[in-house]
């Protein structure tokens, strides 16, 4: 029983952690129809910003906001490449995430006291004394083992997912948010409203990557360290969670898409957790991830056909 509870604990933590990335994809992919590969870089950027700031003694909640800002900025660059320079969506993401490999590395090294030539430590370790999200009030008051559940982590990650869900729901009902939905739906309509549809697109990509960076910050919080491999596989995790969520819960009335996305993220992590419980070695994780993603795409394709939607 205990291993199951332990792995349920991890599934929930990771599910909430990655759901923010997936909500970002809800904005960039579902709403704007933009397959954004930038997250592969911005997740790590968020992690680096968070790691460096927390290690320097900055309040970790403020460090999360700083990660958000970094992701917002880099996502904006992707948007500008696409809108102003008319570069294709996939290429924009590849360009920015490639550049971010250097940016993230140099920032880590310099933040660690190294030089701009690249000599220095490329990892950040949040040792036992660094005040992270779980080590300060209010999470610090919770038990770290409650029937196998780490309540400190679980509460922090759940609260973060909930906050971002609420912010997203409220934002999409504002004028700015509705204009963003219009920009994804019919860019021409935005033009007729005397607004630059390019600006809405840039904003959407900035938000999508800001969310990705927050997920990155939580990944670092969860692992207790930064390494340069953190961004790998994030596109698949984000998109698969999104698509699983929307196709599994798509028919449930009055369920907000953001709630579906959180559900999808948990289902996705649960599948990985079950595979691990069944004894599949973690080296096969990426194959399982790709297979799950394929399954989700097939299911969502079938559902769309049933509903008679032409767009994919």
């Amino acid at each position, binding site marked *: 029983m205990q291993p199951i509870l332990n792995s349920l604990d991890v599934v929930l933590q990771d599910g909430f952690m990655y759901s923010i990335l997936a909500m970002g994809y809800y904005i960039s992919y579902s709403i704007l129809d933009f397959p954004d590969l930038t997250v592969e870089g911005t997740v790590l950027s968020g992690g680096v910003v968070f790691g460096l700031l927390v290690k320097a003694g900055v309040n970790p909640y403020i460090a999360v906001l700083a990660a958000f800002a970094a992701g917002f900025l880099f996502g904006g660059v992707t948007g500008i490449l696409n809108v102003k320079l008319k570069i294709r969506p996939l290429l924009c993401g590849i360009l920015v995430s490639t550049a971010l490999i250097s940016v993230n590395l140099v920032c880590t090294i310099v933040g660690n006291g190294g030089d701009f030539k690249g000599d220095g430590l490329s990892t950040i370790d949040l040792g036992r004394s660094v005040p992270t999200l779980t080590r300060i009030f209010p999470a610090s008051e919770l038990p770290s083992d409650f029937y196998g559940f780490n309540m400190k982590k679980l509460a922090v990650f759940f609260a973060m997912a909930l906050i971002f869900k609420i912010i997203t729901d409220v934002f999409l009902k*504002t004028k700015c948010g509705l*204009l963003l939905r219009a920009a994804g*739906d019919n860019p021409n309509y*935005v033009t007729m409203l*005397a*607004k630059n549809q390019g600006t809405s697109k840039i904003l959407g990509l900035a938000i999508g990557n800001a969310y990705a960076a927050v997920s990155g910050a939580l990944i670092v919080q969860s692992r207790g360290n930064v390494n340069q491999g953190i961004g790998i596989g994030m596109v698949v995790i984000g998109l698969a969670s999104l698509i699983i969520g929307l196709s599994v819960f798509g028919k449930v009335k009055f369920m907000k898409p953001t709630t579906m996305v959180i559900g999808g993220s948990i289902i996705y992590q649960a599948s990985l957790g079950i595979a691990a419980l069944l004894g599949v070695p973690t080296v096969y994780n990426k194959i399982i991830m790709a297979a799950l993603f394929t399954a989700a795409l097939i299911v969502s394709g079938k559902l769309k056909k049933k509903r008679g939607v032409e767009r994919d």
Partner: protein
Amino acid sequence: MIDFENVYKSFRGSVDETKLFEDFSFHVETGSFVSIIGSNGSGKTTLLNLVCGSVMPDSGKILFDGKDYTAVPEYKRSKTIGRVHQDPKNGTCPELTIVENMALADNKGKRYGFTPAVNKKRIDYYKHLVSECGMGLENRMNVKVGSLSGGQRQALALVIANMTDNKLLVLDEHTAALDPKTSENIMAFTDRIVKGKGITTLMVTHNLRYALEYGDRIVMMHEGKIVLDKAGEEKKALEIDDVLGLFNSISIECGN
């Protein structure tokens, strides 16, 4: 209101180049209601695109109230232009509800900030607006626009294009997707709007009767040129047969 001065516009295809407008000049008086007719491919939609800035001329100038707007992007010109496109899909957002579409349009010209998009107090007003086109849309305010028929969407697009005060109304075959009776209703509705607001209007139509019955000026286009342009009394004196005769003779001359 609108002036085209020596406008050139050609489209480059993969193999050939279509020279559509060559040294094209055109003037529209403030407050006039111009009906534009002409065969398929004669350049009517492109003319409207040039007016709105969706297409930029190769050379020449486009002026609004004497000011040079040639380089002003489409979204900035839209501030004072209401437009209904030839394609019903173009004028609304399919994934948003009627209310959401109208709430967005209601805010045109203002800031799209972080205040709630839909003001519940305005919904009755929106219902009143759509009820005027007589399609029962007022009972379907919360359905996604994508589930409406093409004609219903086009009628909604017309209402939306007139929600804020514009200086110019641009209509591209806005009744073409409608059944005969609805088409009549929408045309009469259009006329009420135009007369009520006294707004300068450019209306493209393939319906010669509408072109003669409505508006105070008629323009016929052919291969990027204006081949007939009558206003006022001269226009009133025109009969369908006159226009149809000219239409046919041009087509025969060109061998189609």
